[in-house]
């Protein structure tokens, strides 16, 4: 079984998901088997304003462990990550980062900030 450990920079309690990548998809948003797909399919929310279509950066996660176990980053994902606040060398978009290794041990952090998150500032 693969294991995905999710830490939240805002202080929410850590979550751990054990899953069989062969059973993806677990939900209907994001690439099948992606971090987003796994989280949503196990009842853990990760923002994905564009519906998991690789058109925004609201599912930005920072991979703390297992970066090389994830599927390759596409040019489209790289283009979007360029615009993500708090970009790190191990940043990925949750909707695109696929876990297909059944023995993967992945640790990700959900950053405190995402770009253009809705707030009252959207009204004037």
């Amino acid at each position, binding site marked *: 079984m693969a294991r995905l450990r999710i830490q*939240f920079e*805002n202080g*929410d309690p850590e979550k751990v998901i054990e899953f069989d990548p062969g059973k993806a998809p677990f939900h209907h*948003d994001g690439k099948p088997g992606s971090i987003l797909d796994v989280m949503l399919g196990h009842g853990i929310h990760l*923002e*994905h*304003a*564009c*519906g998991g*279509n*690789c*058109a*925004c*950066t*609201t599912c930005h996660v920072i991979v703390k462990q297992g970066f090389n176990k994830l599927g390759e980053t596409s*040019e*489209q994902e790289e*283009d*979007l990550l*360029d*615009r993500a*606040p*708090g970009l790190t060398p191990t940043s990925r978009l949750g909707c695109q980062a696929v876990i297909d290794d059944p023995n993967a041990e992945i640790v990700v952090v*959900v*950053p*405190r*900030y*995402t*770009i*253009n*998150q*809705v*707030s*009252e*500032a*959207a*009204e*004037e």
Partner: protein
Amino acid sequence: MSLDAPTPAAKRSTLNARVEKIFDHASDTRSLFLSLTSGKHLRFVAGQFISITIPLVDETRSRPYSIASDPENRGPFEICFNRVEGGRGVQWLFERHVGDTLDFSGPFGTFTIDQAPETELGFIAEGTAIAPIRPMLKRALASSSTQKIHLIYAAPDREHILYAADLDALERSAPNFSFETLIAPADKIYDRLFETAQARWVDADTDRTRHFYICGVGKGVIRLRDVLRGAGYERRSVHYEQW
């Protein structure tokens, strides 16, 4: 509004909007004009989208819809969409009536123009993907009255060339703006866009200073991106949004 201004990601709050007007562009293509029930104005950047909460029988989904109106317009803002097979979110939107309300979050997205680059600009869109391009185009035209701006807009038939009168009026009023429409069968649209973009912006000259804004559905968008970048345009000069 700064695109880089960070705000907390922990909890998504939603805004509430009322349907003020419905306009059918075609039998399968509709615009909703929305106003915030708070009475305030939605602040966004040309090209951004909102994420609408779709309450289905068995679950709640959020689905993105580009804003087709101008940020400077103080009236209702507009979203534009078309029916897609199996599209439960869009089906729900088609069932909304004037006076109904809906929840959304946003605006989101970095496929935007606030201040246009001071170079020739090329826009490419197909079908309802003209929605974000329309305000971006107007924003670019507002930024400069001299730089050349060209739009290539494709659809399967004339009925699905949206905002044609609006684009005609823009072309008449702005000497630096031109646009062309491509009518092609749905499965050939991107072939035609590819051929036209290649002829106009790759084969015609060696100028590689232009910036491009491409919006559409499917892998054809990536193909357009690749032909332009492959021809020598800077990676960050080729902006695109693929749905």
